[in-house]
Every structure is written in structure tokens, then in C-alpha cells.
């Protein structure tokens, strides 16, 4: 019940946003960005809601959601750790870091740990090539990361100290 009420509030906020930018097809991507910000991901109900609000088919909305890698239909963990796999990071050993992280958490890239705590993501170049290899943990950029630094990053995330 409490959760439903929470969701209702989010839908109301989404309505407000759609009204502000205009309920046109051209604003679909912007609206989906907002929806993902609000809900954390884009479940079917949200996609349907957006399609009805804009008067376009749900297939069209789903087509857009699945096309762009920024949008996700699966909820992510509490903490998201992204390893940049741009060329500069790759040349400086980003794949070793990704493999080590997968081993540490026991999940593959794109997956979330069973306890819902961590999600591993790989990114396409964040433009911080001077700091390669780069790991982004909950939005905080860690530069020149080595495999040995991963434990500290995970501890930092869990303790909430940033």
C-alpha cells in the first residue's frame, strides 16, 4: 500500500514533466530520461503509461527503450559500479579490472548481486581518458584504478562515505 502511494506520486511528477515539455513524440526520449530518473528503471507499466500519455503505440516506446543503452528495463542494484571500456582505458588494463570485479562480486557485467546491493556495468568512454583506467562508482569517478583498489571502492560504497 505504502509502495503504491509512492508510485502514484512518481506518476504525478511524471505527468507534470510531460506537461512542461509537451506531450509530443519528439520529446519521447527526454520523457523516458525523466521516467528512469524517477523510477530507477523502465518497467512495462511505465512504458505503457508514457505511450498512453503521448498517444503513441507501446511498441514504439518499447522500441526506443530497447534501442538505447542508457535505458534499462531491469531494476539496478543499490550501488552501480561502472567500468569504462573506452579505448584509452582498455589499453591501460580496464578489462583486467572488469574481470576482477566480476570475480569479487560473483556476477557478470550487467547483472546485480542477489542481495540487490551491487550492479556491474561497463561504459563506453566517459571522456576522462587522461585518468585511464576509470571506474565510476555511484557517480563518483575513480581514476588510474588498479585491481587492488577495488576493495576500497566497494567498502566506500557500502559505508556510504564519499
Amino acid at each position, binding site marked *: 500500500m505504502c509502495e503504491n502511494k509512492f508510485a502514484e506520486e512518481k506518476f504525478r511528477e511524471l505527468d507534470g514533466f510531460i506537461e512542461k515539455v509537451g506531450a*509530443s*513524440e*519528439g*520529446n*519521447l*526520449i*527526454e520523457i*523516458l*530520461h525523466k521516467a528512469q530518473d524517477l523510477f530507477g528503471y523502465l518497467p512495462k507499466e511505465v512504458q505503457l503509461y508514457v505511450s498512453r500519455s503521448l498517444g503513441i503505440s507501446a511498441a514504439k516506446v518499447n*522500441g*526506443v527503450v530497447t*534501442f*538505447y*543503452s*542508457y*535505458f534499462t528495463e531491469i531494476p539496478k542494484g543499490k550501488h552501480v559500479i561502472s567500468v569504462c*571500456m*573506452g*579505448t*584509452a582505458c*582498455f*589499453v*591501460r588494463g580496464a578489462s583486467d579490472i572488469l574481470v576482477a570485479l566480476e570475480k569479487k562480486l560473483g556476477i557478470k557485467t550487467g547483472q546485480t548481486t542477489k542481495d540487490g546491493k551491487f550492479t556491474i556495468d561497463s*561504459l*563506453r*568512454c*566517459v*571522456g*576522462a*581518458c*587522461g585518468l*585511464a583506467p576509470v571506474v565510476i562508482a555511484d557517480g563518483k569517478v575513480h581514476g588510474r584504478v588498479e585491481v587492488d583498489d577495488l576493495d576500497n571502492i566497494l567498502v566506500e560504497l557500502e559505508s556510504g562515505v564519499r
Partner: protein
Amino acid sequence: MSTKKQLRIALKNCGVIDPENIEEYIARDGYMAIANILTEMTPEDVIEELKKSGLRGRGGGGFPTGLKLEFARKNKGKKKYIICNADEGDPGAFMDRSILEGDPHSILEAMVICGYAVGAGNGYIYIRAEYPLAIERLKIAIKQAYKYGLLGKNILGSGFSFDIELKYGAGAFVCGEETALINSIEGNRGEPHFKPPYPAEKGLWDMPTTVNNVETLANVPAIFNMGAEKFASIGTKTSKGTKVFALAGNVNNVGLVEVPMGTTLREIVFDIGGGITGGKGFKAVQTGGPSGGCIPVQFLDVPIDYESLREIGSMMGSGGMIIMDEDTCMVDIAKYYLEFTTDESCGKCTACRIGNKRLFEMLEKITEGKGTEEDLVKLKELGEIIKDTSLCGLGQSAPNPVLSTMKYFYNEYEAHVRDKICPAGICSSLTKFEINKDKCIGCTLCAKACPAACISGKVREPHEIDQDKCIKCGACYKACKFDAITKS
């Protein structure tokens, strides 16, 4: 980073002015070009001046900017649009981000100039959602420009009106392609379509549209301030002005460099970049991102411009420049790029969707030591077919990393398939770790580091690796302090 040999035109304000303060931009001749143009020049004059400057698209294609504007001006439409392509997707390139963050007003001014030249009243900046700071700075800049009457209705009392809006990408590399980008702004899947019709004819909402890259636009106000002739005096015969490169990888000084066209790779890598990290040997430089190629040592002295890079099997691209040292495996690099393009292929045309997947699988096979010489023949043949038959620039250039590494580092491919070795020791399936008995003092560090517990030996006696159990993780190699472990 050495400033010698560098010349800053596109980056001239980056790091010099406060990007959140319009007055600082104005103090450095900002908005002077648009003020002069609106009071003294006709749109045709503007196009003529840009043609004279020889400015070409810095996003990779190298199409003459003046001509692009002229086409859009001549085509008729109820509305016309100017788009700034800030969907900087090439991994390893970050000049557009730096310009947007460090000098956002130069992009706004350039868009107004382009709008005046083609007769467009609306502009869009299509920017990646991955660049939050650039988005923030642009929002501030746009707000200030409206406040100062440099955007909006009746700019500087000239009667010309121009509006700019931001549009966000959502993580799709192919959206850097102009027709895909336009689809994305319209709220669709970012799939490209066949050209012609070009955007200059039928672009955004089927209206004449000009799409320009960020760095191209950053040059526009500078050209009017310094004069087209002076700009055209910089560079080579076919490529004028400067180019910003993003130096990264195994090089001592990483970061952005802006050099006149015609500078050699050696000057960039060694004089400006300070050479290779760790005193290692230079192997190759990769330009043009996933669409480009790897350039080997024998071309270090080629003066760089659009044509020369194409001749040696690479391309200018957006200016990413990844330096690779002797420890880089070229087959692995080709595989890396193919993985990228396979992942980012939009799936619309068969050649790119399936062809690149097959290329990737073959490379995977080769790096696992299961490749045959026949695979090498197939790799080349398929690569060429994909180049010839793909719909858009992504597919047409996706095989470039494979074809260029095959051209210049064929011996490495041969070593992988014939001798089943990876000369650089990168491909783990083909790597073998061994302990040199003469150097090993039996400190047991390697055995402690080994996650597979496959290193045995008594304290103070040479150790041994059980090759059947070894998972080739390299932990022992990193742990050894006596260089006793060899990687082959």
C-alpha cells in the same frame, strides 16, 4: 604538455575563461563575429567566407562546411534547422566535451552564424547524457545569451531571430551519424537511413537541416575574427586550420593537443606527448576511433591531414589518438573494436548486423588459438564486403581496425594461427608462464599469489608451474620481484 608546436584556435578559450560567465567570453572577442555579420554581411557573404577559409567537418567526414551551409540555404523549406552534433561517441575522444565545458558560448555563437547563413530560425544541440557537466554549462550559457539578446527574437536589433534547445542522447554510438541523430531528435530509434536525400535537403522533420560537429563550430567565430585568408594559410593544401587530438593510451602526456594540420605523428607522440610510458617501444597509433585504423611506426613522419590518413588505411575521425606500446596485441585490439561496433550496430542492415558479428567471432577464435590460415583469408574478404555494402558510416568503416592491423601486422595474425602464440603475451589462451630456475630464489611469493594453487616448490628452492592447472591469470608474473617468471 609542451605547448611548442601547438596552435590553439578551437580551444583558445578553454581553461582561460570562466565558462559560466558570458562577460569573460565577450572580453575575448566573443560575439564580435556575429555582431559584425548581422550588421555588415549578407548570408551569401558568410557562406563565401567559410568556403574561402577551407574549413572542413571535424567530426570525421571532412566535408567542406561552407558547401554544407550553401546546400541548406539553396533548398527550400517552411522551416530550416541547425544541429550541433555533440554526441561524442568515439571512445578515446573528448575534445567536444572539453569545448562544451570550457567555451560553450563559442558553440552558441557559431550556431547563430550558421542559422543566419542558411536562413534557419531554430537550432538543436544533441548532446550525450553521459556529459552532465557539459549539459549544465550549456544550460547556463543559453540562459545568459538570451538575457543579453544574443539569442531569441531580433538579435542585436538586426531583425534576425534564432532559438537554441538542448536534446539528449541516450547511449547509442550510431547516433553520431547525422541521419540517425535526426531520427533520435524526432524521438525515434536512432537508425540511419540511406543518403541521398541528405539532411541539407530533407533533414529534421523533413526540412533542410545542417548538422555540424562541436569542434567544427568552435572554429567558425574564430574564422570571422581572424579572417578567412589567415585561417586558410594554416595547414596543408587540402586541409586548413588546426585539429584537436585527444592523446591517450601508453603515452606520457595524455590530454588534448591542438596542432596545425600537416603536423606529423612523430611530433605529436614524441615532442608533445613526451614519448611512450615506461620507456617502452612504440608500436602503433590508432586514430579515428572504431572507424579508424592502426598506424605503424613507418608512417610516423607523414604530415597528418584528411587525405594522408585515409591513404595509410586510417582516418581523421573525431581526433581520438590512442598510442600503443610494444606490449599491445594487435589482434586483441582489432577484436576489441569489433566487439564495440558489433554491440553498437543498430541492426538495420544485414552487412553490418551479421557481417561484423562473424568478423568478431573469427577474431575470437584466433585469439583463443583455434584460428586457421583459412580464417585469415575469410577475415579480409568479409571485411571488404562489409565495407562495400553497409548502409551507413558505422558499418562501412567497422572493418577498418581489422583490415589495417592485417595490413601492417600480418605477422602477428600468422603467429596466432600458425604458431599458436601471442607475440605480445596478451591473449591468455596463448600465453604460457614459466619460472626461470636460474633466477628463482624460492621466496614463495608466486605460490602465495597463485589463485589456482598450481605453483609448487620448497622454500629457497626454485619453484615450478603446473601448466595443466595454470589459469594464466598472470598473478605470479606480477608478484615476482626477481624477474624469474617469463611470459611467452
